[in-house]
């Protein structure tokens, strides 16, 4: 399987998202065709500055995807996912915006005719991963954390308040899943980086809830969520809940070694929790 991949600016510097994605895709024979010369999607900033600019920044990739011959675009970051989808939605609904965006891109030597379908990396693995083949991680309790922008505002992939797609996935590939009430509570995103003290409680509340409900490790699907939950705990000097990426857990389920999956990059170490007989 070949997929057109948009990494986003945080992918490479994340705590093992890149390593684990590449390792898992290699194992599953998924070829990641990264968009050459991709730019920042604009995330939550650009639409607050200039709608046409924001749309063009995102749509530049739609044009590039077109030249690559793909119909779909996959990304692993919630903000990129939401921003690209927002641009796609606006372009489909607003003829004038489409015309103007097309004009801007043409000026840059790019043709925009079609809008690709935007998908999250989670969807790809949900389809590609085989069911669990071993009981090795049956006793490892995982709390799923989606963040906000996978199932909101669209609710196309799953329900906005209490989705189940990640829980089902983790359970299917052999982990013990602990349901909890903070799976789509906001971590504070970029505000938590700037307003550390004020937003600390947002992350702490999520971690506390996941811990209360019996999980030993958290599974995330977005670099900024992973960062916020990871570093919120690293302030405390005690042990915490390791915050992993779902691709890292998928890699473990496939029998890959933690070192291959970038698990050493977590601030709160997962070593103890992952030591299995």
């Amino acid at each position, binding site marked *: 399987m070949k997929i057109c991949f948009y990494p986003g600016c945080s992918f490479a510097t994340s705590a093992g998202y890149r390593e684990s994605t590449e390792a898992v895709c290699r194992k599953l024979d998924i070829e990641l065709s990264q968009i050459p010369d991709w730019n920042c999607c604009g995330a939550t900033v650009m639409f607050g500055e200039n709608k046409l600019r924001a749309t063009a920044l995102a749509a530049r990739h739609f044009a590039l995807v077109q030249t690559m011959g793909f119909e779909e675009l996959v990304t692993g970051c919630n903000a990129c996912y939401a921003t690209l989808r927002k641009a796609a939605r606006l372009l489909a609904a607003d003829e004038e915006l489409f015309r103007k965006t097309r004009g801007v891109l043409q000026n840059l030597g790019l043709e925009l005719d079609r809008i690709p379908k935007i998908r999250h990396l989670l969807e790809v693995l949900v389809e590609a991963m085989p069911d669990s083949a071993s009981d090795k991680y049956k006793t490892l309790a995982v709390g799923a954390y989606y963040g906000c922008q996978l199932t909101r505002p669209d609710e196309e992939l799953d*329900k*906005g*308040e*209490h989705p189940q797609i990640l829980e089902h996935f983790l359970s299917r590939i052999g982990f013990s899943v602990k349901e909890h*009430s*903070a799976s789509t509570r906001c971590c504070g995103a970029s505000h938590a980086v700037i307003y550390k003290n004020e937003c600390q409680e947002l992350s702490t*509340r999520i971690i*506390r*809830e996941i811990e209360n409900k019996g999980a030993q490790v958290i599974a995330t699907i977005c670099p900024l969520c992973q960062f916020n939950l990871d570093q919120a705990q690293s302030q405390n000097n005690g042990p915490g809940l390791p915050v992993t990426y779902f691709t890292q857990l998928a890699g473990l389920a496939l029998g890959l070694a933690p070192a291959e999956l970038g698990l050493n990059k977590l601030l709160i170490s997962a070593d103890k929790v992952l030591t299995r007989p």
Partner: protein
Amino acid sequence: MTTRNKPRIGVYICHCGMNIAPKVDVEEVARYCQTMDHVTIARDYKFMCSNPGQDMIINDIKELGLNRVVVASCSPRMHEKTFRNAVRSAGLNPYYFQMANIREQVSWVTKDSREATEKAKSLVAAAVGRVFFHQPLDTRQVTVTKSMLVIGGGIAGMQAALTSANAGYQVYLVEREPSIGGHMAKFDKTFPTLDCAACIMTPKMVDVLQHPGITLYTWSEVEKVEGFIGNFEVTVKKKPRYVDEKKCTGCGTCMQKCPTKKILSEFNEGLSYRTAIYTPFPQAVPNVPVIDATHCRVLGQNKKCGVCAKFCETKAIDFDQKPEFVKIKAGAIITATGFQAVNPTSLEQYGYGRFPEVYTSLEFERLNNATGPTSGKVLMKNGKVPERVAIIHCVGSRDTRHKKYCSRVCCMYSMKFAHLLREKTGAEVWEFYIDIRSPGKLYEEFYNRVQEEGVRFVRGRVAEITDMVEDPGDNGRLTVIAESTLTRRTVRVPVDMVVLSVGLEPARGSEDIGRLLGLSRDGDGWFNELHAKLAPLATPINGIFLAGCCQGPKDIPDTVAQSMGAAGEAIALLAKGIVTTQAEISRIDPDLCSGCKSCIESCTYSAIRFDEARKVAVVNEALCMGCGSCAAACPSSAAGVKHFTDKQVMGEIEALLM
């Protein structure tokens, strides 16, 4: 006046006040009509339906020798009858009249004035083209069966049945549950008087059972409806109770002895269990149990049991009972199929189904009711009395994602719950609302009273109910999160119990009833009344009336008033004794009929029979509804509907296209 003479057509364009003019240039339309062939006179006038308007038509018929009349105004459903009567009173057969709808179909829906005027001209020309070919017709009079069918045995149906039976008419009341009583039987105290629902209703239930004029069918459903106004023929399916109603004494031994005890009780909203043989509640009417065939060991699982039969002293248990079909003749039908509560599971932010202490209003009602799972004490599932309870308004109502309408009764029942909680438990009550709607008699006073009782009203629609707590000491409780819009702050209140004031929606199965009766429903599924303001109890189907929530959410006082009104309308129909039916019925030309019987197969009213002697199809004029299916099916154009002949319809189309 006969068609032998050349048609002399009078055309009248109505202004309808400001409804048609000036959007449509009515003078221009009238001038245009004056130029048409066979149009003797064309006038425009402000209000054709008024007395002067009608007199204008009458005078013109008499003085100008008109033998056809066209009025271009509103929908025929409004005034076709009016104008036909005017034409008749001038001595002309009323079917020499045709209406063109230039209001609902032109002025109300066309933006551009020029376009509207052109369209009006086309429609009037079409009417003129049609009326040219009209023939004189006669209506029929049919006698009305002096009995009534009421569908639904809740408070609405019971009241309609009682009012009608008290007036001396035979009433058949059909209820699909084992007992009558509907939702009201589940309530504890009712607002604003805090009457106990059972106390005020059980006398009515007994009246219904004992009234010589009411034949009660419970555990029964309407299966088929045939016939027409004044002469409905309804097939009722009596589902097998597996208990002989005539032998059962209501002693209840069977229920005590039944070994299958773990079936969730529907009456108690799934909060307690019942047995396989059961009556839904102690005051059930009739007090005869039914056997739930799915869960019964004998009927559903082919196991050996029959304990109930063993202990029944009157040998009333009958496992071989089969459904029985009863045919009822009724002159009028009153639909009182009620409502159901909105299921809040899809409002995931409220945690219904995930958190055990989140209840719907109906579940909470059962907790309060003495016959409920906790004998009327407000207790949590762990047996404790709650210390703080939140009541959430507008769950599923006033919400474009669920029901966009306001369900009308929830503010009042929410405040009733607040009152009951304060009275029974002294718990701290937080009530989260958007607006307080208390329009009825003594309703605002009730709101005032509840305020005085110290209920904490917070104006803010609840954003989320979660089991995450702020204070570790509140572990195990739920947190209600909302913006208190009046104090401009976010409140996070830890509570023991949450009551969701869910909205109302049409009862399960109302779509099927609608189809059986031919009733249309609005976008939310409530049955359509004939006119929202002026005819809220009648339906477009003559002889079928509405009572209670099936027409729209309402409280008990309004339901009872409406039921009495619907009964009144039905009684009026029965009392008159005759109905005038339409002249537009089918006619089969025996000279053209080839005897293929396609019409007979297509007739939904079974109104056509085959004459074996002449080998042709013949219409039974008493049964024909003029639907036109036979005319469409007939390959030889032998079947046609009077007043909708090919000539007339083609004449209309040709004139429209010219």
